């Protein structure tokens, strides 16, 4: 069968950097073609070329055999290329239906046909297995629901080629599985699906073919049967998977660093937990289980309203991030772009941010040469790869940004680190580096609390796992526990129902 989409010898350079170098790619009707690669490997650039956001310097694109040149995303969309964007492109204050139809509004006698919009939006969402009200304002939806709206928007046109750029990154496992089922259905309808993901189990489950990109070049394209997770990861990063998760602590954990008794707030109830020096405590749970609320409470962002918290044996009040920092809590937010970095400031200034924020009001900015030197040292310790620490942090990859935020906290030397979704949207190589860093931080006698929706990560990295369900801690499991066991607690069911649903 001839491919619906062919991209030949695509090259694209930004100033000096070659983001794409002679890349060949194709996708057939009714197949799922997965693109793997580290961040910065050129996946997103390739898709932006396909979607008409970038014009390639060289190469040609053929749709159904005919060459096309897109000058604007609207032309790509009209030609049958739909893209589910990784960054949500929704309008927060418009309704679900209005969002789905952005740019494609049906009219009747020249007027917006809202009834048709509502009906078709409802039908689309139903196909996705969702019953989000079409009149709801998008700002009121959860991230997972917003992701669904985004997908419905891409499916509005009968796309020939559907591109999904990490669509499951914001979804918990249950929603992710529903999405994967939907993809199989669309595949059966003959859509050519291009799928970008970092989640290996997912890749192996849905791919027909797999393409690996590295540093803007094509490494290989293979049928799924001829590819193994190990081969993919090796091609992406040039290292074996065995040493992916770092070894657990050799020694017994030390004294308790964090102790919470009977704590709760609007989203949390009866939280009792301990995190000891030298251990990584994983917090698992579904989207609205309260694991995010727990992280915010620990950092004083949405404080506990009852119960007691002790850090280092001393009772502390965590009513603001400032108090939490003073009490020795370091926090790596899940939404790096919005809560983590100051995008237009330099890597160095980002590393200095908390130090400056906590400094006395009348101290010198940057507190002089010494702290700049220390920031640079920490950035180098974290192996932040930037041409120059003076460059804007927004220009770095997600993994490097995350490392720079860790470097920021090293300046503060907290006893307790709270990591929220530490590797969301981060490529495999940088993931391994971040796990190693977390382990190293723990080995230096700190306690780490890791909130994550990524089950393999929870199971592979944690020394102990606390699973949350409906605002409570539903149970505790040892590190390396079965993923199914975690899921069962997270779903709040007994028996094997959880495992069955996950298959």
């Amino acid at each position, binding site marked *: 069968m001839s491919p619906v989409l062919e991209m030949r010898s695509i090259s694209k350079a930004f100033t000096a950097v070659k983001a794409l170098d002679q890349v060949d790619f194709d996708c057939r009707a009714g197949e799922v073609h997965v693109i793997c690669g580290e961040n910065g490997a050129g996946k997103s650039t390739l898709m932006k070329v396909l979607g008409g956001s970038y014009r390639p310097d060289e190469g040609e694109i053929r749709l159904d055999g005919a060459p096309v040149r897109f000058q604007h995303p609207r032309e790509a969309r009209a030609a049958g290329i739909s893209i589910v964007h990784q960054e949500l492109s929704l309008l927060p204050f418009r309704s679900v239906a209005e969002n789905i139809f952005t740019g494609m509004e049906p009219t009747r006698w020249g007027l917006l046909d809202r009834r048709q919009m509502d009906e078709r939006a409802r039908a689309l969402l139903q196909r996705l297995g969702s019953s989000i009200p079409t009149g709801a304002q998008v700002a*009121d939806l959860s991230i997972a629901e917003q992701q669904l709206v985004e997908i419905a928007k891409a499916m509005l046109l009968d796309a020939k080629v559907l591109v999904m750029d990490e669509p499951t990154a914001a979804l918990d496992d249950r929603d992710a599985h529903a999405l994967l089922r939907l993809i199989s259905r669309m595949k059966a309808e003959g859509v050519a699906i291009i799928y970008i993901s970092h989640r290996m189990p997912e890749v192996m489950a849905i791919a027909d073919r797999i393409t690996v990109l590295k540093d803007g070049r094509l490494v290989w394209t293979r049928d799924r049967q001829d590819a193994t997770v190990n081969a993919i990861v090796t091609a992406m990063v040039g290292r074996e998977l065995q040493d992916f998760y770092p070894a657990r602590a050799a020694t017994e954990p030390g004294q308790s660093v964090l102790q919470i008794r009977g704590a709760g707030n609007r989203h949390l109830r009866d939280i009792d937990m301990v995190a000891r020096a030298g251990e990584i405590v994983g917090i698992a749970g579904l989207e609205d289980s309260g694991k995010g609320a727990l992280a915010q409470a620990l950092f004083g962002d949405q404080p506990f309203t009852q119960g007691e918290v002790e850090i280092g044996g001393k009772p502390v009040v965590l009513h603001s991030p400032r108090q939490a920092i003073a009490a020795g809590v370091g926090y790596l937010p899940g939404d790096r772009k919005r809560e983590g970095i100051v995008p237009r400031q330099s890597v160095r200034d980002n590393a200095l941010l908390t130090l400056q924020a906590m400094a006395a009001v009348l101290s010198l900015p940057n507190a002089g040469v010494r702290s700049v030197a220390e920031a640079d040292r920490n950035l180098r310790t974290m192996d932040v790869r930037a041409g120059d620490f003076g460059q804007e942090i927004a220009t770095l990859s997600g993994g490097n940004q995350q490392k720079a935020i860790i470097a920021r906290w090293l300046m503060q030397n907290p006893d307790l680190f709270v990591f929220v979704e530490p590797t969301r949207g981060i490529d495999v190589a940088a993931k391994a580096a971040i796990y190693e860093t977390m382990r190293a931080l723990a080995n230096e006698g700190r306690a780490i609390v890791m909130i994550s929706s990524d089950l393999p990560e929870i199971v592979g990295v944690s020394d102990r796992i606390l699973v949350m369900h409906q605002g409570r801690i539903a149970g505790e499991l040892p590190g390396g526990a079965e993923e199914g066991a975690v899921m069962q607690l997270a779903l709040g069911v007994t028996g094997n129902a959880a495992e069955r649903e996950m298959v």
Partner: protein
Amino acid sequence: MSVNATPVAMTRRGFRDVPVPVVVIALAALIYVTAAIVTGQANQISAAGLTGLLQRTVALGLVGLGQTFAILVGSIDLSVAALISTVAVLASYLMQGDPSMIVPAIAACVALSLGVGAINGVLVAYWGINPLIATLSTGLILQGLLSASFTFLSGSVAPSFQALAYQNLLGVPLPVLLLAVFALAAWFVLAKTRFGAHLYAAGGNPDGAKLAGLRVQRLVLGAHVIASFAACVAGLYLAARLQSGTPWIGRDGIYDLESIAIVVIGGTLLSGGKGGVLGTIAGVLLFASLDASFNMFGVDAFLKQVLRGAIVIAAVSVYAVRNRGHVA
């Protein structure tokens, strides 16, 4: 997928769900009626009194309608005050009291404002200049040119043109009808047409709108042209009302900042993508009833400004609370 839970905000009914224009208009009515009763001027609550009230809203209301478009797409227009003065002066200069020049004068003014709007739009949308800076600068240029050449540009509008500002139709002053028609048209465009939906998209998430296939730059340009056109209509109205334009009409009326104020009071988000013209009309009614009340109390005009400022702060604070929990 497992998204069966109804979003919280859909189930909670209360203050948050009352549309902003309704609240603002209720507040305006309350202020006006209270002032009339307290000062013993209950006769103000009559058709004549209300007509007088509405008459005060026309100029600012027209500018505000246009400003709403600029703000909805995430831009802003600070050149409206200077444009109003320019149009008022140009209209009276071209007419020189000659009725046969009414149409050519209006045409020239409209052409000029469309040009100014297009320049604003190009500067903001295509050259990427911050809208505050871009429109402030075009405003300064207009004002400068106008002040430099005013000695040559004297004159007055044609009497029959002036009459338009004072005539009634079915007991309603013509200018009030004019504002109503423009408000209705603006509402229609924003709520009922694709162009309107696209304006909201361009303001709410420019990158997302572009990826959805919209030509965001053109939309921003279009909004600026509309804002300037609305300022032009306001300028023509003021010229008719005052018989001749002076180069300070716009500046003295603070139409730039006050039009932004009423848009914001009306619940339109300054960053764009949320709001509408009904709120703006409610905002101008609130300002007008404040003015009228102060007149009834016989209070110093400067105190009026204090209260206007306070109202803007109060409104924005209330919206901040109402919107709490939103991802914007």
